[in-house]
């Protein structure tokens, strides 16, 4: 039941996008987001759409999967569209009761919706082509300089990767606990919100206790394997920049610069 949730929608593959260093991809996404929030008109958005299409082709993502990624935010998209469409002041096109559609409203609605869609699809591509652990490694490398100002980068990355490792295990355990309580007559389906929340207690208590016990045992196991913090640690896989990473970053920087320039001129 719960096991069917796929996390982060990572899809293993060997495309150029998969082989890029995760740091490159993270930085590209940041540049993309900067571009998205600078874009002002048709041309700047157009360039960004082209960039996204290029990325989609490179990653070999199916269009269906891409749009399915929008499902969770469909409501936000609709809400944004409606809000901008009907409540933007400006030159009226039509009117009905308190609802006014203005030219500015249409323009704004379209661009806001575009922005959200492009944002979601762009980050979707990131998680599609990069496994959670690779992403964490990439983030850790990028944030390493912060160690100098005493930010515990290694510890944060370790916590992140352990959490990722245990999510499927905990989901499985939740399933088991729920089955066991259902076998004793627990009812998770009926009742109002409050009743249903209370019905979750026989699941949450054992789950939390189990999670703490796991953490305890894991800590001992880690120490037995000589874990002593981030000092002096080496890695099995060391991230290297290749030519394609430099190329990718250059392209991304140029595109973003272009978008910002276009936006400056209101395009």
């Amino acid at each position: 039941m719960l096991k069917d949730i796929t996390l982060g929608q990572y899809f293993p593959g060997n495309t150029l996008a998969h082989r890029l260093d995760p740091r490159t991809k993270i930085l590209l996404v940041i540049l993309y987001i900067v571009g998205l929030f600078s874009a002002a008109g048709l041309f700047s958005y157009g360039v960004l759409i082209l960039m996204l299409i290029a990325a989609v082709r490179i990653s070999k993502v199916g269009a269906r999967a891409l749009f399915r990624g929008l499902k969770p935010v469909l409501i936000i998209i609709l809400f944004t569209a409606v809000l901008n469409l009907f409540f933007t002041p400006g030159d009226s096109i039509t009117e009905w009761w308190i609802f006014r559609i203005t030219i500015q409203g249409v323009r704004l609605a379209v661009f806001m919706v575009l922005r959200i869609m492009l944002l979601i699809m762009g980050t979707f591509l990131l998680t599609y082509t990069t496994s959670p652990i690779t992403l964490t490694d990439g983030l850790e490398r990028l944030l390493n300089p912060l160690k100098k100002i005493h930010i515990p980068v290694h510890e944060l990355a370790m916590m992140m990767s352990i959490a990722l490792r245990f999510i499927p295990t905990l989901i499985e355990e939740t399933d088991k606990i729920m089955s066991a309580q259902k076998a004793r007559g627990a009812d998770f389906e009926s009742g109002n919100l409050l009743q249903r929340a209370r019905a979750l207690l026989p699941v949450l208590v054992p789950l939390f206790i189990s999670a703490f016990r796991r953490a305890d045992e894991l800590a001992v196991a880690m120490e037995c394997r000589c874990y002593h913090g981030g000092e002096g640690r080496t890695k099995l896989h060391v991230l290297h920049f290749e030519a394609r990473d430099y190329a990718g970053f250059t392209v991304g920087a140029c595109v973003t610069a272009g978008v910002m320039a276009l936006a400056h001129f209101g395009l």
Partner: protein
Amino acid sequence: MIATENLQYTYPAAEEGGKATVALRGTEVTIEKGSFVVVLGRNGSGKSTLAKTFNAVLLPMGGKVYVEGMDTADEKLLLAIRQRVGMVFQNPDNQIVATVVEEDVAFAPENLGVPSEEIRRRVDDALEAVDMSAFARHAPHLLSGGQKQRIAIAGVIAMEPECIVLDEATAMLDPVGRQEVLSSVHRLNREKGITVVLITHHMNEAEDADRVIVMDDGAVVMDGAPRAVFSRVEKLWSMGLTVPDTVALLYGLEQEGLKVPRDALTVEECADAVAAALRNESKGNEDQ
């Protein structure tokens, strides 16, 4: 390899005014390098506590534990000791740290600051040693219990330890998984000379050991070759342990006057012994 001197350990009381549990009462045990030792005992006998003192997970409250001459109580030697004596625990899930098998096996050498290429070599060798090379890029949570424990063992081997302690590592496995783990550690013991200390309450796991130590109530009660230990049937029963079916049968027949050796452990040996005894008896009767 490992030696304890008058080892004592007491667990504090679980609640206010409750009783503390004495787990180890002056235990003295020596583990020889390269041996395969099984420590048996019922729950509460102290066997698990003993195991945890071997690599300083627990520090002695009285007495000492020495690993290759190093005192486990010495904080400065902690990493050196833990690199030499690796431990595999009971719950397969709660030892795996990474989301990819080979990353998890690499965890220990990474902690030890081993250079990247060397880590690669160790990981490959370790997975090969437990017959899990095909699963290097898999997600651990999809593996069976036996497979997870073998990954845990690989993770320990990657430290290149002298000794592996398995603390009831087969308790949560099904028979197939248990067999996989046992084959792996026996192979490591035979082919790489790694000392193995196996803590368990499954009697049949002791059959192939070099030496069996039986613990009860915080002390070593028996110590010897499997055959010698299993022959002491009444004593084992009195400690809430069992003996293999073969030994139980032989003991029962012996009680009825049949001349059978008590220590014919394996099925074949047992059958041979029983058949021979019956034949001899009937021949003896014929001769009379």
